[in-house]
């Protein structure tokens, strides 16, 4: 026997970093297993189904429209926020409620580290559930109907950041005020915040309220995902803001004396300040946001590559011999549009300024929540004349909503005929009469035209045309019935043989458009 055999085998010590990583992973695994967060997920799932999913259905088959309620207006994270904040507060108050704060203060791990592990586990559950629920909802939408455009992934990321931020804020409330009332207090605070910001977000179209993740003003309109990419400027600022709040809340946890040593507390203070700085910077950045035709731009965050339109090859059909070409995302509406325009185009065929082609063009972002807030429009321009249709501006695109198809079938001919006869402004009495007569032959009887002129979203001229057609007989109970001189002239003009009407228009259209004709000069 030698001394050599008695000597203990000496292992090379493992690196401390690896041990810390392993211990962290174990701690996180334990916290994941004991976390309370999964208990609340069935309640959130039920609410998510009722609120986010169901109320999002029933819109035309475009991602940006189908997800307007649950992503643009932030309902998905609103369904999560109060609950994850409350449960996180319950988890954060655990040591205080059980009176074990002194015990864990003497453990190897600093208390702040243990709290971060508990928060991380709760957040993994909450954010994981959020992502799963959203992906399932998207999958169901896509399965039910072939949605056009692209999903709003940036808004999904904002929601995930919001869920993490509310979890952190709730956890901090529980850690600082350990009581059975910490959970409802945190939930109530989160609830009040999301409800009030949701409602006030409806009204504020610029400035700091744009940082609110449920403010859809000027940043979630139907051009996005179809004609242009979703602009990520505002979502990036929102993620920065929400992440800043989360980091600041977590930093606050490390400030009390019991959280750890002096260095650790100093680090926590730095973390808290960094979080506040991030949130503050994001709030300042959104004040520089400006509305462009295809979304909200924040100059410091903007990438010019996102300004490039999405390329596509139009799909075309024909209406009265005129080509009608649409973005392939609107392929499903091609036959409807051709059918709606066919009698109008047949009526004006061969007349000066009559469109020789119908083309879909992108609309423009409006400062409110919807593009139609600037008024639904069509335009005839170019040489040869082209009828331009910004279909994304139409709020009446046929959808599962009852009555929507009928409105669209009236709105499109009405806008087209008005543009042809009177341009984009209000019409003279003679123009109103000719417009009414042409529409009568395009499938909208004179008796139905007052109702058509009240379709929501029509430009201001619709009100003037209505007053001319009903001669002031409208009231709060209805738009009134056609009567008066415009109506009489329209009936007279509509009763002419088609060839006579066409010949008169060919000879007098320029004077009519210029507003130089009176009702008495109509045949």
């Amino acid at each position: 026997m030698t001394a050599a055999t008695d000597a203990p085998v000496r292992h090379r010590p493992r690196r401390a970093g690896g041990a810390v990583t392993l211990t962290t992973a174990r701690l996180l695994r334990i916290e994941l297993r004991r976390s309370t967060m999964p208990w609340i997920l069935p309640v959130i799932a039920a609410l998510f189904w009722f609120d986010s999913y169901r109320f999002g259905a029933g819109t035309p088959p475009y991602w940006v429209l189908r997800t307007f309620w649950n992503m643009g207006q932030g309902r998905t994270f609103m369904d999560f926020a109060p609950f994850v904040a409350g449960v996180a507060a319950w988890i954060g108050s655990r040591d205080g409620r059980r009176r074990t704060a002194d015990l864990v203060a003497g453990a190897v791990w600093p208390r702040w580290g243990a709290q971060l592990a508990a928060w991380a586990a709760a957040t993994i559950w909450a954010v994981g559930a959020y992502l799963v629920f959203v992906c399932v909802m998207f999958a169901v939408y896509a399965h039910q109907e072939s949605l056009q455009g692209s999903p709003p992934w940036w808004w999904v990321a904002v929601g995930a950041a919001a869920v993490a931020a509310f979890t952190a804020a709730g956890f901090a409330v529980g850690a600082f005020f350990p009581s059975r009332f910490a959970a409802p207090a945190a939930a109530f605070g989160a609830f009040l915040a999301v409800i009030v910001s949701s409602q006030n977000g409806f009204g504020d179209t610029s400035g700091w309220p744009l940082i609110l993740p449920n403010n859809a003003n000027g940043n979630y309109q139907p051009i996005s995902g179809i004609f242009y990419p979703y602009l990520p400027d505002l979502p990036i600022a929102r993620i920065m803001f929400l992440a800043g709040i989360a980091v600041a809340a977590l930093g606050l946890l490390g400030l009390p004396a019991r959280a750890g040593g002096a260095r650790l507390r100093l680090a926590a203070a730095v973390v808290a300040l960094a979080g506040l700085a991030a949130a503050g910077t994001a709030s300042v950045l959104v004040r520089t946001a400006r509305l462009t035709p295809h979304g909200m731009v924040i100059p410091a965050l903007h990438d010019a590559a996102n300004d490039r339109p999405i390329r596509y090859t139009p799909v075309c059909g024909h209406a009265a011999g005129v080509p009608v070409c649409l973005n392939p995302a609107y392929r499903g509406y091609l036959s409807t549009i051709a059918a709606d325009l066919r009698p109008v185009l047949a009526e004006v065929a061969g007349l000066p300024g009559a469109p020789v082609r119908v083309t879909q063009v992108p609309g423009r972002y409006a400062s409110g929540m919807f593009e139609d807030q600037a008024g639904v429009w069509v335009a005839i321009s170019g040489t040869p004349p082209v009828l331009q249709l910004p279909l994304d501006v139409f709020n009446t695109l046929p959808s599962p909503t009852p009555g929507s198809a009928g409105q669209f079938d009236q709105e499109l001919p009405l806008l087209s005929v008005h543009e042809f006869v009177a341009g984009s402004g209000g019409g003279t009495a003679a123009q109103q009469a000719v417009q009414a007569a042409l529409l009568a032959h395009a499938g909208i009887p004179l008796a139905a035209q007052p109702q058509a002129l009240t379709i929501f979203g029509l430009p201001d001229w619709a009100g003037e045309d209505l007053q001319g057609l009903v001669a002031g007989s409208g009231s709060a109970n209805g738009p009134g019935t056609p009567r008066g001189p415009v109506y009489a002239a329209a009936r007279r003009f509509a009763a002419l043989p088609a060839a006579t009407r066409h010949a008169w228009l060919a000879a007098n259209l320029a004077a009519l458009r210029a507003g130089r004709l009176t009702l008495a000069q109509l045949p």
Partner: protein
Amino acid sequence: MTAAGVQSSPPGAAPAPTAGRPAVAPLRLAWLYLRSRRVPAAIGLLAGLGALLWAALRWRWNVAGGAAAQALIPLTIETGAAAVIAVTTYGPFGDPERATGRWLPWLRLAAAVALTAAAFGALAAGAAGGALPGGTLALLRDLGGMTGTGLLSAAALGGAFGWTGPMAYWLATESVLAAHWTTPWIWPARPAHDRGAAICAALVLAAGFAAITLLGARDSGRGPVPD
């Protein structure tokens, strides 16, 4: 060494309550029960919510939107009150209390009824700060119904999570208000004198009282609970 003297109290110990003071014992039991449920703190919170409602109405805190939106803050405060009542059902003792507490169901019922009444009183006093949408009748109906949802969720999920019921109900209600539904089960969307809405709210409150009386909160020894 004998067992003599084992049953005698140490010098200076408080004498055990005797059967000679029957009137004090029920009061003491009730007081201990209320303290174990943190009812005094809950009453403080309800008073705070009443003050919040008073301030909201006095200084006309409002959110953007139509008539339905104007009721959002008062209804949110009522939701908070219902959540506080629901959380008081959480009991820390579990099986021992259930096994020995003959009067427990009555104590649960009495505490829930008393706190609901206190919440109504606090919020009605707060409503004096201005014009409450729907008036006191709507306050009574909405608070009662939401308290019912809280008690039911406490019975199902546990007292510590009783607050989830009113929160979930109010989030669903907010969507329904936006969609202009008029079902009486969404009672805040109906006028104050609507009989159907009042019946629905009363049914939910009665179900909540019944569940909390007969079953108690889930964490009182009736099943596994999260912590």
